[in-house]
């Protein structure tokens, strides 16, 4: 177990360095003059002009050679200082903490709800083969093929306009979180419920499951004692991957529900060539990715120490 953690810490350092450098290199050779881009985001459309770009150029020393700014970035990184945003001047930590915090919160509740829905539907359709199972299969395929903002819109029309019990958009109270989470959960559950169903089928048809019945256990006892644990390993591994990759995938939900997520923030940062913010976000998401991955692997390893789940 400890070797896994040691390996993962080494991987963390590597990922942090890799992600930071990759974003730095990619950002440096983007076309278009960085000074103008930053000026546009700073001063707004109506007053961005060559004078504004000039001010930005002096202030940020954009003409410095790239390896100078790379060394500068590296020294900052070592002292855990992510630097200041070129556009707003606020420390990157605040923007990342605010936006990434909200994204992680939405992703976490979204995946949580998605897993609950998926497990319920998956197990149900595994036990009740036939019409119900087919119905869920085609419903999931349909939901998967629909852009998530269509699902979001339908939820808004139902729960916020026709029957106004929830706010349409914005953030702050828990009511604001309900609709975006439901939209995200539906689109994720459409994928994960098939995974749950397949694994449940595999376990139910396994010889040890029948042997448990022969030992005299009742169907429910068999499912609780043997079913849950064997199903959980592949399902947890899948949900872990889903949680990690969903964070940046929810840009549609964030913009529809005006949720201050990282997806949208990143898009603006890239348009504005705000390198420190992009590097800060990418680093944080990289670290988050490695931590989440390690937790999922540890959990899977704890349940199934055969190591087959590496």
């Amino acid at each position: 177990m400890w070797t896994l953690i040691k390996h993962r810490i080494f991987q963390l350092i590597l990922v942090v360095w890799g992600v930071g450098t990759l974003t730095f290199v990619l950002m440096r050779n983007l076309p278009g003059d960085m000074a103008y881009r930053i000026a546009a985001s700073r001063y707004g459309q109506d007053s961005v002009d060559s004078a504004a770009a000039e001010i930005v150029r002096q202030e940020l020393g954009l003409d410095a050679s790239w390896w100078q700014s790379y060394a500068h970035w590296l020294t900052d990184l070592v002292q855990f200082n992510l630097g200041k945003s070129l556009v707003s001047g606020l420390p990157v930590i605040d923007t990342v903490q605010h936006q990434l915090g909200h994204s992680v919160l939405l992703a976490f509740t979204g995946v949580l709800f998605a897993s609950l829905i998926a497990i319920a539907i998956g197990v149900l359709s595994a036990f009740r083969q036939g019409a119900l199972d087919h119905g869920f299969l085609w419903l999931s395929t349909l939901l998967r093929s629909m852009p998530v903002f269509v699902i979001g819109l339908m939820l808004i029309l139902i729960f916020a306009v026709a029957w106004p019990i929830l706010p349409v958009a914005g953030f702050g109270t828990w009511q604001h979180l309900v609709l975006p989470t439901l939209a995200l959960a539906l689109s994720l559950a459409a994928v994960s419920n098939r995974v749950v169903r397949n694994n449940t089928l595999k376990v139910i048809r396994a010889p040890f499951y029948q042997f448990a019945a022969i030992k005299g256990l009742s169907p429910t006892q068999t499912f609780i004692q043997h079913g849950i644990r064997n199903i959980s390993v592949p399902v947890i591994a899948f949900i872990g991957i889903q949680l990690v990759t969903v964070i940046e995938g929810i840009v549609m939900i964030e913009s529809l529900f005006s949720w201050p997520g990282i997806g949208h923030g990143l898009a603006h940062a890239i348009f504005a060539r705000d390198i420190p913010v992009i590097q800060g976000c990418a680093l944080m998401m990289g670290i988050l990715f490695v931590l989440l991955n390690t937790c999922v692997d540890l959990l899977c390893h704890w349940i199934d120490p055969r190591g087959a789940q590496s």
Partner: protein
Amino acid sequence: MILQLKINQKVGVGLLLGLLLVASSIVQLSPYHIADQDLSGRLLAPSAEHWLGTDHFGRDMLTRIASAIQLSFVLSFFCVLTSATLGVSLGVITAWKGGRMALGMDVIVNILLALPGLVLVLLFAAIVPGSLLVLYLAITLTQWVEYFRVSRAITNTIINSPARQLSQMMGFGPWYQFRRHIWPELTHSILTLASFGGANAILTMASLGFVYVGIQPPLAELGLMSVELFPYYAQAPWILVQPLIAIATLVFGFHLLAGNKHDGAH
């Protein structure tokens, strides 16, 4: 290596080819061009001269949907093809060679996975603005990791299987071993991944369109069209539904192609 297609796989292939055929024939025969606007005839309901009605510029939806299906199908197929070949070949080689290469690949895969997919795609979109091909290439870069992971896991189990060992002892080369032992095991999972890879590519295009990236009028692409028509869901819901149905049919076709029902997702 004959790929015996079961009935529903045949139906899937038929559906996809049919869709493509109908789409290309419409584009040829249709009197309208995807950019011909008639601003006075905006958001018309399906009628005799516009079978699927007109969009917010009065452009004929039937022609646009047909050309969008063509473009999206070709691009998502190209995207799935590149990500699958890249992912599978690297996955198999890493599993086969193991050792230092596996470690190296692990590092690269982790960095690519840790980097948010959206950032990668947006950076690529910014590096070469305005080319849809580069956008799809970027989407491929975020998708190949799935294929890599699945194919490496499966190849790991087959590498030390007696069958492969025996073939090696009998003097068969690595390509034969791959074709005879590894590829048949991979086909099903890869097809399942591919079936949703295409749709994910189109949906990623839609999420890009949501942050105003990749839009180049008068181009018709299913993902971007669903974004452009989204504001008119109240006035003309039948317009927004069309690209969604097109995407759903593509996914439905790919899904059937992926094979039998008993395990839908990977």
